């Protein structure tokens, strides 16, 4: 017969011990990520395939779910959709205008030559951050598919984020709407640099912020496109981020700030493209 060893410990003592362990873990990880990364990578490799599987079930479930909605809801939705159509028509006109502008600018900036030059890998979003505070997500491609940290991620024709962590079969991406995200960008028409940051409170309206834009000629108006800057050391140059939604002059009278509507929609995000070219910087090429 096997004898069981019972370790009896008061729960508040145990709490103290476990707190010390956890604080130790925090300190250990802060001082050297070499200990933590293999563990996290291994856990990710176990979790990611399961999430991948369950995610497909979830996708089916959500389509089923929408099928069950009752008629009342549908008629209300119909009304809403009709108003949305009117809204969208308006937006479409605006977009057609800005797309004309874009094609002109693309020619100016040779974007049409630069975009296809980047090699891309398609990937699927399999899970998202468990809270409502940050916008990071995991895709089902990893180092096995040649994904590396700092690779740019695009969707629906615009920049969506950057790879922050990579496992064998998964990669974690920080979206540009994430409150922690900072992208070095520029106005496409004037090449003046600015910073684009995510904003949690603007997320509901689908807007992100930009600041530090010099625009003494007032050339940047609503609808102007903002692209990634060529002085950024992580983002490839000329990737479209979004269009200026509103802009105002800062109290220093030198720079302007405002909001951008990103090209890519984040709520409905399922497929992304990972650009496998890394930005070549002095640091990288050494």
């Amino acid at each position, binding site marked *: 017969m*096997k004898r*069981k060893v019972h370790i009896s410990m008061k*729960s*508040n003592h*145990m*709490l103290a011990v*476990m*707190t010390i362990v*956890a*604080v130790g*873990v*925090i300190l250990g*990880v802060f001082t050297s990520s070499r200990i*933590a990364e293999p*563990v*996290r990578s291994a*856990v*990710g490799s176990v*979790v990611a395939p*399961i*999430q*991948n599987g*369950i*995610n497909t*079930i*979830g*996708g089916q*479930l*959500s389509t089923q*779910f*929408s099928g069950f909605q009752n008629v009342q809801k549908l008629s209300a939705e119909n009304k809403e959709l009709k108003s949305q159509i009117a809204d969208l028509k308006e937006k479409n006109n605006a977009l057609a205008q800005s797309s004309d502008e874009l094609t002109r600018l693309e020619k100016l900036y040779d974007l049409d030559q630069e975009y296809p030059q980047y090699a891309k890998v398609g990937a699927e979003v*399999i*899970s*998202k*951050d*468990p*809270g*409502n*505070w*940050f916008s*990071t997500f*995991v895709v089902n491609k990893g180092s096995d598919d040649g994904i590396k940290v700092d690779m740019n991620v695009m969707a629906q024709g615009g920049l969506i984020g950057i790879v922050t962590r990579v496992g064998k079969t998964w990669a*974690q991406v920080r979206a540009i709407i994430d*409150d*922690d995200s900072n992208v070095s960008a520029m106005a496409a028409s004037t090449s003046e640099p600015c910073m684009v940051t995510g904003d*949690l*409170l603007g997320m*509901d309206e689908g807007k992100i912020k930009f600041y530090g834009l010099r625009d003494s000629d007032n050339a940047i108006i609503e609808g102007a496109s903002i692209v990634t800057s060529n002085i950024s050391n992580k983002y490839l140059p000329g990737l479209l981020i979004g269009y200026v939604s509103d802009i105002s002059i800062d109290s220093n009278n030198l720079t302007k700030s405002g909001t951008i509507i990103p090209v890519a929609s984040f*709520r*409905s995000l*399922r497929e992304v493209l990972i650009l496998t070219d890394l930005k070549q910087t002095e640091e990288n090429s050494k």
Partner: protein
Amino acid sequence: MKRKLILFLILFLFFLLQTAVLPFIPALWAVPNLLLIFVVSIAFMQGTTEGMTTGFLAGLLVDLTYGRIPGFTMVVYMYLGYWNGRYARIYFDEDVKVPLLLVTVSDFVYSIIYYVAYFLLRGRTNFGGYLVGVILPEIVSTLIFTLILYHLIYRINHSMVEVEKKGKQSLWIRD
């Protein structure tokens, strides 16, 4: 032991639901904190020791996959598990009112700590905006899911506790 293993599997299932299924349902305005529901429920039913162990494991899962400061969620969930476990003395049946209250307070406390650690310290001082825009929607959706899931957790845990009790009373079946 068997009960704990099954509970861990349910915890893992909740984690998968919270990260890989629920965020993709567009009708949901905020992703509910299923892990917190699980930690609070188990703590309320089983007491401080199991509460904090569950919290520790739940936090570990989050920290190893999505954690920004490794160990942060672990510590917060652990303390929430411990604190909720102290209310186990008033637990006696599957009434959902007390757990609802505990989940509300716990989610609020968790959100406040999260806000201070990740947002206030980065100079995001607009607390009112975050309260209305992020914290309250999450609490509401978490409460709705508590109504659905608490009975489920209760049934599963309760039936297994009964089996364990019987096993302890019997002279023959003892491991």
